[in-house]
Structure formats: C-alpha cells, structure tokens
C-alpha cells in the first residue's frame, strides 16, 4: 500500500497571527512620522513630532495636570456609562419579557432612539445646568439606547426550546428570566456595552467642549483655541488609550461572564 501525499489546500485560509509584523507596522509608521517632522518639511504646528507629543504628555503627567483631566473624564464616563447600562439592561429586559412593557416601551424607544444625543446637549444644559449633571446625563442617554435595544433583542432571541425545557423542569418565571433569558441575552448585552463605550467617549468630548473646566474634551478644545497642536495630540492619544482600555476591560469581562463562548 502506498501513501499518497495529500496537499493541505486549506492552508491559505488559516490565519496566522504575525505578532512581529503587527508591532513593526506600527513602529514603522511612528518612525516615518518622526523623520518627516525632523526634516522640517512640515512645521510642528501642523504635525507635532511623536517624541514631542510624548515629552509634552510626560510633562503634563509630572505636573499632575493630565491626572486631573483624566480623573474628571473617568468619573463622568463611569457614572454616565454605569447608569445608562443599568437602565438600558433593566428596560430592555422588561420590554423583552412583559407584553405590557413591550406595548408601551417599544414605540417609545423607536421614537426617541434616532435622536442624535449631541443635539439634546443644549436642552440638557438648560434643564440641568452647565455642571456635572448635564454631562453625565448625555453620556447616560447615549449608552442607554444601544443597551436597551440589544438586551431586548437578546431576550427575544432566547431559544424557546430551552425556555420550555426549563419550565417543564418546574422553573418559575423569575428562574426562567435569570437562568435562561438573561444568559442567552448576554452576548448581545456585551455587544451593546462595546458600542456604548465608543459612544460614551464621543459624547464625553462633546459635553466637555461646552463650559467645562477640566476633562479630556476640555483639554483638546483648549489646545485648539490656543493652537497648541502638541497638547491637542496628547489629548487625542489619551482618548485613544481610554478607548483601548475600555475595550480590553469589556473583552475580559465578556470572557468571564460567558465562559462557554469560543474566543472571538
């Protein structure tokens, strides 16, 4: 019996991770950027050098200035995101489970969801003043809708077979909600959380650009007013790091909450 070599024709489809290429690509970009600014072709006003941004960031970190901005922004995000997510999940669950809540809630959400939350900012400022409340409220609204809609969809897509199985084993209403519906809605809830995290950064910056005294959005607007492009880039880099950190945290939380799911 002879062995025939069989070529693995799916090899081209396997996705390798190329960890070195990832880092090198990013490094090359930053290096090219630094070189471009060093040649003097582009004035630092239009394109500050990466090292300059780093130095400026370090200086602001050392003076404690950056810490104040980050702390203020984090407080607003955590409060707004937390309240919005909590409200969104509760409302989404209620609308998904109870028919009366669905009858009332669904049209309300459909009517208010498409309003860009930034457009509500001036109104929120009139109602709640220029202090913290209006800034937290706009982030809360921005997170609430994707959370409510995703939770609702997740609950509605719970496998009816599983629900029937649970009921036939004698599970009560609350038990079904807690042990079947909520877990099957979790992937959708986490998708909503990731969407909400992006939205909350966007709204944070918008809110902090109106009558704030600190925060990353204020730092960016201020740097723009003063035409300090290096500090402006520091603000943008901090925002991007905040985005990365929140994504990383959510992915971690998702793995912990959904151990049965394959890694994405």
């Amino acid at each position: 019996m002879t062995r025939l070599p069989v070529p693995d024709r799916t090899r081209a489809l396997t996705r390798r991770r190329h960890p070195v290429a990832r880092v090198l690509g990013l490094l090359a970009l930053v290096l090219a950027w630094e070189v471009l600014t060093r040649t003097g072709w582009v004035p630092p006003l239009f394109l500050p050098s990466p090292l300059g941004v780093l130095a400026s960031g370090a200086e602001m970190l050392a003076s404690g200035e950056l810490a104040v901005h980050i702390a203020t922004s984090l407080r607003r995000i955590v409060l707004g995101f937390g309240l919005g997510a909590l409200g969104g999940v509760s409302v989404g669950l209620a609308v998904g489970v109870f028919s009366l809540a669905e009858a009332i809630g669904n049209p309300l959400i459909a009517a208010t969801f498409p309003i860009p939350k930034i457009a509500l900012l001036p109104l929120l400022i009139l109602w709640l003043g220029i202090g913290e409340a209006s800034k937290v409220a706009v982030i809360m609204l921005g997170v609430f809708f994707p959370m409510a809609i995703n939770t609702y969809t997740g609950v509605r897509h719970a496998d009816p077979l599983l629900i029937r199985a649970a009921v036939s084993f004698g599970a009560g209403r609350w038990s079904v909600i807690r042990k079947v519906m909520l877990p099957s809605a979790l992937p959708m809830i986490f998708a909503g959380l990731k969407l909400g995290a992006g939205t909350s950064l966007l709204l944070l910056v918008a809110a902090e650009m109106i009558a704030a005294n600190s925060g990353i959005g204020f730092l960016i607007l201020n740097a723009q007013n003063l035409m300090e492009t290096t500090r402006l880039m520091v603000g943008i880099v901090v925002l991007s790091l905040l985005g990365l950190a929140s994504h990383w945290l959510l992915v971690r939380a998702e793995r912990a909450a959904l151990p049965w799911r394959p890694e994405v």
Partner: protein
Amino acid sequence: MRRLVAALALVSLALAAAPGGAQPLPKVKLGVLKLTASAVLFLGVEKGYFKEFGVDPELVYFQAAQPIAVALASGDIDVGATGLTAGLYNIVTGGVHIWIVADKGREWPDYNLSALVVRTDLYDGGVRSLRDLRGKKVGVTQIGSTFHYNVGRYLEKEGMTLADVEIVPLQGLPALNDALTARRVDAVATAEPFVSRLESSGAGRVIVNTGDTFPWQIATVMYSDKLAKNRALAVAFMRGYVKASRTYYDAVIARKSGPAYDELVALTARYTGAAPELIRKGFPYQDRDGRLMPGDVGRQLAWWHQQGFVKARLTEKDVVDESFLREALTLSLGFR
C-alpha cells in the same frame, strides 16, 4: 514639423505678451469678521481704494478671531483683520509665520470695545469692582482670547491674578449672554452689542470699560507669510489700507458727523446687517496712518508667556513687520 513648432512658439509668445490692461488684478483674500470693527476694510473695498493701487480684494467672512489666524497659517487667506489672540502667537511658536503689519482698532478712552459686566443682583449687593469678584465665576469666550486677556489685565490692575477668579470659557458671545442671564456665571467679559443688550434687559451692569481702564492694541491687520514675501503686492495692499484708514479716521474719529460719517454708517450697515445705532456705538479708535501702539504687541507676548498660555518667549520682531506700512506711507506722502 519645424513650421508647426515655430507657429506654436509664436502663439505662446503672443499670449504671454497680451496687453497689460486686459490682465486681471492680482487677488488678495481678506479675512474679516462681519462686525462694525471691520468698517475700515469695508470702506476700502467699497470705495475701490485697494484696486487703485493694483490689488483686487476678496472678502472672506469668519465667525471668530481664532479661525482667521488658522486660515492665515494654512494659506487659505492672505490678509486677516481681527483681534490678537494667544492662539495666533502659538501659531508663530509652532513654526509658521504670520506678520502683524498695521493697526486695525484699539481699546481707547471713550472708544470702549469691550467691558466686564456683572449680574445685576450681585451689583446691587455691592459688587462694584474686581476685588469683590474674588473666587467668582467669570465667563469669557475662549481661553487665549482678547476677552481672557482683558480679564487678566483688569485683575492685574487691582493687584490680583487670574487665579483669583474662576475663568469659564463658553465659546461664544451669545453663550456668555445666556449664561449671565441664567445666572450660571457671576460676570462676563463681553463686547458690543451684547453689553448694551445685557444692560437694557436688566441682567447685568458694567463695572469695567476696557478702553477707559487700559488702552491696548486689540486688533491688527495681519499678513500671511506668502503675501509678506510678495513685497510689491504687500506694499500695494498697504497703500490702499492707509488710504482707507485716513478716510475712516477723518470721518469717524476727527469729525464724528457729516456726510462722510453717515455714508460710512450706511455702508457698514449694508455689509454687517447691523442697526445704524449700534454701528455708531461700535466704531473703534485707530491710528490715522495705521501705526501700531508702540511696544504693545511686545507687552502682550510677555504677558501671555508669563501666564503660561504661550510656550515660547517671542519678541516683537518675531511677529511684527511694519516695513510694509512705512514703505506705503513714504509712497503715499503726496496723497495726504
């Protein structure tokens, strides 16, 4: 083939040598705010003073001083006429040249452009000076704006510093009005027509008039580096500006009435859409020949740097170039 080349050469020569009269005048883009303070430039454009010296000005309207400085840096406009901000000085710090070339309006006694207005209830409660405003919220348009500078210098006159009040940037004059009316700030640094509106609505009372308190070079004419390098065009524009400035001075500052004054009011009303009563109140003082207040830009540079809003220690020679004005004045001696 050779004949064809010769014919083409002839045609191109003929095109190049087209008669000078048919050539359009070189265009200069002129960035201004749609305010009474720009009256001298509206006058120069409307009366054809710039065209007289071979420059075709094109007005470009902006909403605030800072975008004009940015447009000068990016080369979108050639001339800017507006207030001096820390942002402008930071542009120069960032390696892009902008040149301050002539006077376009000063805070001057009896010609107040801006004021500090406090809430009426605080005024009635005894807040009559900056000393009484210690620790209070003072609204300005933007950090680094002329209004921010005003507040800083008022405080200094009282032996205080910016740290003695809480500066709240609200991004625009209408927002300042709303904030004071809604009592969300305790005082605002603002300008006409908003000062009059606040006083007539009863929301606020003026406690400092800038021009009466400390005169300074608030607004200037600025050139982009590109225009400054085109010396002939830059001087030609300046000759038109000097003529407009003298006409403006004679009508508004020296006479304050008469047909030339009324014509200027009507013309400014047409360009800005503002009411004539407001325009009469809003004409700024400026030098007849367009000369800058000696040393004032240097004082501003030092102050912004000392307060930490301009990173580099610039001097006047980094941002001021009055040579265009001097040359224009020499050339215009016969035009008095």
